[in-house]
């Protein structure tokens, strides 16, 4: 056996490198007034004005087909936009999910009506989607979810609760996985819906995280009447549709760049110090960053070729989260300064990243689930 992984080096085409310079120029102007702690949050940070500006540039849906209003460019070019935004600390959170997976899902499984009505708002950076998967009794065990959508005439009647829904309070829509029937196969009987969050019976309650921020929510559905034509894809095929999204969700640059600003700040701090230990540690982290980037880009290349790199994506996400989580600890060890949200730039980055780092190996699939997927790929289960 050689490794079951299929990472191939992938190079950015020339046009991607040209685009990179355009993005850098745009960001140096657009981010002038964005405060440091917002930058440190990267894709946790949301700014609707910023998202609209990105939409005006034509940089949302860059790799979507032209007939759907996209620019029909490659995933590699889209990747450049993402990594440049993240490393500049752009507040991309508002449109991030719609661009990454809701839009592509609508293009792949949606009806013409879905596409005509929903894609233009996404492309303009005005229409935002959240993902409704986890529930109070269904975290890692997604198939245990209970929220029901019962077919009644030309509507589905939805009852239940979604939990940990990032950004629901600023989204117009949720793409939700509901149970539409009870099947013997525990992965059967699920369907995906596009739910207009302004429908009667939908309540969105904030859940404040440990850093005092409002990012995720509890979304309660009480006799919500979802029109029948808002089912997306095939009834009963929800599980397969959801798992197909996972490679998109797990391999992007956001899976290893969450603490990037802290590393850059360490480079800044050690520019004026004569400290071999610190400098060596910075170099070591660079070697991890460089390698993770090549791995993640490789997955983007596979996606571009229409392959399904679900296993490779899990590898990138697991290693990426370890890297992102380690950086605040390394920064602490090297600098020994208190994380302080009113302190120096370094202390402010440290304050926010130290606190949010536990989420890096929870969101989008926990470490244990990812390693289970990898173990299956190795033929162990």
């Amino acid at each position, binding site marked *: *056996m*050689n*490794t*079951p*992984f299929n*990472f*191939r*080096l992938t190079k950015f085409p020339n046009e991607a490198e040209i685009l*990179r310079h355009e993005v850098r120029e745009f960001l140096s102007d657009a981010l002038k007034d964005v405060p440091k702690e917002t930058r440190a949050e990267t894709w946790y940070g949301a700014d609707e004005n910023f998202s609209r500006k990105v939409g005006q540039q034509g940089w949302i849906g860059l790799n979507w087909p032209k007939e759907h209003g996209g620019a029909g460019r490659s995933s590699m070019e889209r990747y450049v936009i993402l*990594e440049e935004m993240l*490393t500049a600390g752009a507040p991309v959170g508002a449109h991030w999910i719609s661009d990454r997976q809701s839009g592509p899902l609508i293009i792949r499984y949606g009806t013409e009506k879905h596409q005509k009505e929903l894609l233009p708002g996404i492309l303009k950076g005005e229409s935002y989607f959240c993902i409704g998967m986890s529930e109070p009794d269904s975290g890692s065990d997604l198939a245990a979810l209970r929220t029901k959508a019962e077919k009644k005439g030309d509507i589905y009647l939805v009852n239940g609760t979604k939990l940990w829904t990032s950004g629901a309070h600023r989204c117009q829509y949720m793409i939700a996985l509901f149970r539409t029937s009870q099947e013997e196969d525990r992965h059967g009987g699920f369907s995906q819906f596009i739910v207009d969050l302004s429908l009667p019976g939908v309540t969105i309650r904030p859940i404040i995280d440990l850093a005092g921020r409002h990012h995720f929510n509890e979304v309660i559905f009480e006799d919500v009447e979802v029109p029948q034509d808002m089912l997306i894809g095939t009834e009963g095929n929800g599980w397969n549709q959801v798992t197909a999204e996972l490679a998109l969700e797990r391999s992007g640059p956001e899976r290893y760049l969450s603490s*990037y600003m802290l*590393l*850059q*700040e360490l*480079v*800044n701090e*050690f*520019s004026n110090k004569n400290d*071999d230990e*610190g*400098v*060596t*540690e*910075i*170099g*070591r982290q*660079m*070697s*991890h*960053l*460089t*390698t*993770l*980037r*090549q*791995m993640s880009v*490789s997955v983007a290349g596979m996606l571009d070729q229409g392959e399904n790199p679900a296993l*490779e994506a899990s*590898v990138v996400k*697991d*290693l990426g989260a370890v890297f992102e989580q380690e950086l605040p600890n390394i920064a602490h060890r090297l600098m020994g300064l208190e994380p302080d949200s009113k302190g120096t730039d370094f202390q402010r980055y440290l304050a926010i990243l130290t606190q949010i780092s536990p989420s890096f190996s929870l969101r989008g699939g926990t470490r*244990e689930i*990812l*390693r*289970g997927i*990898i*173990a299956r*790929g*190795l*033929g*162990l*289960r």
Partner: protein
Amino acid sequence: MLNETSQLLSDSVEKIFSDHVTKDCIISAEKGEWPESLWNEVIENGLNLVLVPENLGGVGGSWFDAGILFKAIGRYQAPIPLAENIVAGYLLGLGEVPFPENSIITLLDGELQLSDNKLSGVSHRTPFGNHSTHGVAIIGDNSKSKLVLVPILDNSTSDDKNIALESRSNIEFKDVEALHVIDVDFSSDLILKIGALMRSCQIAGGLESLLDQSVRYANERIQFGRPIAKFQAIQQELAVLATHVAASGVAADYASSSMDDGGDELAIASAKSRVDDAISICASIAHQVHGAIGFTYEHGLHFSTRRLWSWRAEYGSGGYWAKILGEKAVSNGADNFWPSITSGKI
């Protein structure tokens, strides 16, 4: 997807190594025996000439191709200086010198002086020194250096070994007449850099072998009535091992291909540092999964781990290269940090 040359080389090295690099072959090499038939196969197939230009009778392959062979050496623990000979062929090619026939060349390193085309000094811990017929050295630390090919004379080599029991000879030169002395515009640092690339790839291959053996063993070994692979504790450990093996393979490939793109230090330094980190994690997990049997000489796991523990310190440890990366990063400044990552140049 590999191109035609790469695929051919890959198939050919896999065939040769899987036929010849048996456990017995490695054990007798550890006792000092030269694996004649293995080496002959390698030479007959021209694997040592992958980086020799076609006009000098070589394959004219890329560094990426060479990387494929380096990784295979690590994966099979092939006890031969193929990597060193590939690099020697490359260096000679830079000086327009053809690869001397029927020779085994090693890479010299140490305090060596050249006077009237005669080499003196000691090359320390030279890989496969006491099996080699010739040595290549770069004398000089600036852009006006000499590329030198010298014969290795009888009774000039020590029989030192690394902990993997691979020959690491001290070779003494006393006014040894060089066969070729060529003016070149690169310094002796080039051997350090290429050496780091070569070992990084070999390590990436060695790590693959750890994963392969560990997965196989976990599926075979039965405890508490089932294969230990069925326990989540073992699955999670092996998954971690696999992620670092995957990362090392990518780091090594990136380094090889960066040589084809001009040879900036960023990718090579990153690779050596990254695979060094991976060894600490992977060797520990592989041995843990194997339990006591993996700690015996009888079981073959150590053919990989002892090589990894030796190779990680050669041609600059991970820490050495990390320091170089870090120094360059801080001197370039924070604003240039990300651009250096995206351009692959530091």
